[in-house]
């Protein structure tokens, strides 16, 4: 009844909006990110330099872009383990189209993205129409894509790429690196796709309850193909951005991308069994991984700890996940659940 009695409806709806954006799953990891950030910001003068913060964003951008695709796939109840190979193949095809076919950089990039779409479509058809298990299937197609990459490049690098090909990875939009802008655009569009469109709802449905989805009479096959195609496209986009960051086209580009990508999704709260996950969460997951990696550098710890830290973070994320779903509790851990 005093001055702070603002109109309740507006406060309520604002709170509801915040709650919707920060569903409990994301709020936990978001809190972890904030704490981690504040601690690092306080203890390390190097960490809080604007240049360093921009560097972190640059480092997580490729991972994030590809991880948005992986999140979509995992929410649908599947996995795409061929993403790294698609990224590499798309990057090399882009470079080759410029170097050997003499195409303009933008056309070469479109060609590279096309390769990603094609690879993703193939994955989708194998998963949906031929009902192959996505984990082993994409592991196999990933090997094929990598093989095609090395076959057409004979394992040789293409050195000295033109600005047109490296702009996505190195260019600036005003003062901001283009790839950071691209990361946020992709995150926003994928967030809208997953939460606001019929397609996104279908993805969450088939990941949440496949049998019920089939009973409803939706076209599960077509949705699956769409999911994998999009994953292929984003993998290719990530590969082409990586091409720009590296500056040269190395055939092994994209190898080693898969683990951080899956990690970002899992740390970000994507449920491995499908149905639940968000692009915001994945972005937060990627940021946590990025800060973890950066802290090793700025605190002058051994950078080779990176893999250990990354691996442990995933284990912790999985444990939290098990607790949340009620699959695990202290009684089980202590062996009293007989």
């Amino acid at each position: 009844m005093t001055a702070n009695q603002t109109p309740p409806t507006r406060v309520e709806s604002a709170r509801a909006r915040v709650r919707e954006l920060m569903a409990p799953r994301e709020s936990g990891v978001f809190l972890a990110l904030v704490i981690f950030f504040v601690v690092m910001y306080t203890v390390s003068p190097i960490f809080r330099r604007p240049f360093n913060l921009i560097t972190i964003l640059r480092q997580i951008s490729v991972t994030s872009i590809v991880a948005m695709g992986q999140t979509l796939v995992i929410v649908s109840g599947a996995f795409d383990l061929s993403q790294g190979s698609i990224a590499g193949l798309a990057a090399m095809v882009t470079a080759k189209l410029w170097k050997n076919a003499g195409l303009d950089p933008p056309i070469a990039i479109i060609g590279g993205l096309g390769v990603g779409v094609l690879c993703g479509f193939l994955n989708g058809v194998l998963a949906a129409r031929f009902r192959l298990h996505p984990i082993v299937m994409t592991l196999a197609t990933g090997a094929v894509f990598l093989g095609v990459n090395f076959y057409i490049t004979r394992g040789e690098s293409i050195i000295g790429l033109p600005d047109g090909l490296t702009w996505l990875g190195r260019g600036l939009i005003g003062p901001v690196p283009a790839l950071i802008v691209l990361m946020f655009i992709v995150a926003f569009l994928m967030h809208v796709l997953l939460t606001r469109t019929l397609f996104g709802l279908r993805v969450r449905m088939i990941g949440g309850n496949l049998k019920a989805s089939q009973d409803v009479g939706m076209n599960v096959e077509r949705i699956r193909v769409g999911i994998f195609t999009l994953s292929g496209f984003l993998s290719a986009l990530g590969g082409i951005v990586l091409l720009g960051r590296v500056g040269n086209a190395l055939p092994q580009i994209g190898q080693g991308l898969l683990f951080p990508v899956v990690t970002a999704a899992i740390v970000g709260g994507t449920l491995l069994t499908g149905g639940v996950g968000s692009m915001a969460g994945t972005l937060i997951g990627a940021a946590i991984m990025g800060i973890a990696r950066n802290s090793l550098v700025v605190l002058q710890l051994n950078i080779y700890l990176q893999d250990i830290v990354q691996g442990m973070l995933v284990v912790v994320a999985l444990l939290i996940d098990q607790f949340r779903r009620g699959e695990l509790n202290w009684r089980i851990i202590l062996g009293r659940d007989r």
Partner: protein
Amino acid sequence: MSIEHAVEMRGISKRFGTVQALNGVDLELRRGELLGLVGDNAAGKSTLMKTLYGSVIPDAGEIFVEGQKAALRNPRDAQALGLAMIYQDLAVFNNLDVAANVFTGREYTRRVLGITFLDKKRMYNESEALLSRLRINISSPKLLVERMSGGQRQMVAVARAIGFDATILIMDEPTAALGVKEANTLLDLMSELRDQGISIILITHRISDVLSIGDRVMVLKGGERQGVLNVEDSTLEDVEYLIVRGRPDGSG
């Protein structure tokens, strides 16, 4: 065929391998009544309802819905005729909110630039209206189903069926996994729906449920119809006698 019947099944038979699951079963569901379907395990209750819902094709027999002969090849055929079945293992999406569940398969959408967006506001508003019309006590259509009790999930499934303009509801053991209070709330909802003109078949082991809210009760035993009793002039013992012993006269 009589138009007072929402559903009429004539001589339904079904054999699975060597087991005669159903043997010439007749069933009449009057419009706006709540018919209990009871019997021991393997009496054929669920199989009979699956034939009505199109998920089991009978070897012999005819089915009439609202007086019209129905060719039911799958559940979608049944749904098109206004039938809805709510199973024990619920076909709800636990990872989605109430509104998404209520509108599953017939979402409101808007096309912008060739992309189909969900009209969430409309779905929230209409599911809220539907819930309050059915007097279902769920505080918000934005609630995630995974945070709900078993009874509330059943009610979401019921709301979904009614939202699809179902006029004939088949409920398979809806109260089996519920506590007493929740079961009673669900039973209240069912009699409410019946009063609103929905015809309901309730498969249950809990005969007292049928006797408290049902109009008639039909007993199956060994895949055969044993009799149909009016709830008003029947006791628990009458029904149990039929379930265990079968028809008093033993005639075919």
